């Protein structure tokens, strides 16, 4: 699969800003270099999460549209 991750945050079924806030919680806990994937069924996550990742200075590995949900993969960079 494209964009393998060390940790997967399954936020499907939760609404904006649920998935972003789940990612924020997880990123606080992980070390620099960790790759995290957020699964979200909320379309706005595919836009909001990359926007936050950019602002917070992390690396966006990719946004992948799966079957009925998005998988947004990022690398903690600082």
């Amino acid at each position, binding site marked *: 699969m494209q964009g393998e991750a060390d940790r997967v945050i399954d936020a499907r079924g939760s609404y904006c800003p649920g998935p972003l806030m789940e990612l924020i919680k997880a990123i606080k806990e992980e070390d620099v270099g960790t790759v995290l994937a957020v699964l979200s069924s909320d379309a706005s996550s595919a836009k909001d999460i990359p926007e936050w990742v950019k602002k*917070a200075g992390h690396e966006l590995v990719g946004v992948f549209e799966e079957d009925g949900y998005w998988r947004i993969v990022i690398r903690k960079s*600082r």
Partner: protein
Amino acid sequence: MKNIVVIGGGVGGTLTANYLASKLKPELRERKIKITLISATDKQLYEPGLLYLIFNKMEESEIIREIKYLLDPDINLVVDTATRVDTSNQVVETEKGSYPYDYLVIATGSKVAPEEIPGLKEGGHWFYNLEGARKLRDALAKFKGGKIVVGVMGVPHKCPVAPIEVSFMLHDFFKHLQMRDQVEILYTYPINKVFLMDSVAELVADLFDQKGIEYKTFFNPIEVDAKNKKIMTLEGEEEQYDLLIAIPPHKGSDLVINSGLADKGGWVPTDRFTLKVEGYDNVYAVGDATNLPVSKAGSVAHFEAEVIAENIAAEIKGLPPTARYYGKTMCFIETGFDEATYIWFDYETPPKPVMPSRFIHWTKIAYNRLYWLTARGIL
């Protein structure tokens, strides 16, 4: 005899118990059922009043009542802390006793956890509990000018609109003191807009601009440097303040966490329509305690209490339980000391705020007094 046990003497618990008592009056009198409400404290705090208390616009005596005077006299009030829910034996254990149940309602609410942000306890204020509100009232009265940061430090938190309201009220407070030009107000929010819901975010950003209230979004504090009065964020920013009004992270009650009834965040997984705790047929959750994607608001607890009471009463009377919660939420939004708007929404209907008016503000001020009738199950 069937035992209905309600844990928590806040909005959700009191209302559920009172509605049950009124629907099941004959059964109570004939001792076919018993309703027990277990509350850790003998008093109830009307939390929305804290927003007024910090500006000296409401007194403590107006926002606190003894629970025994709020409850139907046929309800058995137990002032004690529940320590564990044993779902296999259907018993609630408390510090001093144990209470078997046939139906259980979890109404243990949420509380602020300032300790989750290092330095916040030492360097910040909050108005989300009585103790914090008292301190903030003093700090505001003594404030000599400078920068106030209203910072939301985690979601979910109680009353999603309160941080917005406090910002607007700060604007008027200092305007009335002829100090507004000496006070900078900065509002910060974790996501990329000033509120969760688009329609509200647009209206509020517009009003913030008009009133000269600044705002920063994608702002997630991770630490407060109390000595140097600085907030550090996950986004790598630093923000200076003279007075920090934080909305601290929230968590659920220790009871549900220790009883294995909560998710990672401390919230009880609850069916969004029936309000039954997932995996149980006779255990319900109401109000702030649930994991539902609805506001942690007194109005939600109120509307949910109606559904739970109706369904438990129906089952006891041998009728099918057909009431469903549909996400109904109602929130006033004070936009200053003399105007307010409100939003009304449910699972399918997004909110549409109306233009702020004096009339809506007066309605809110009246409700601040009428709430005690709501708690009694009358209004």
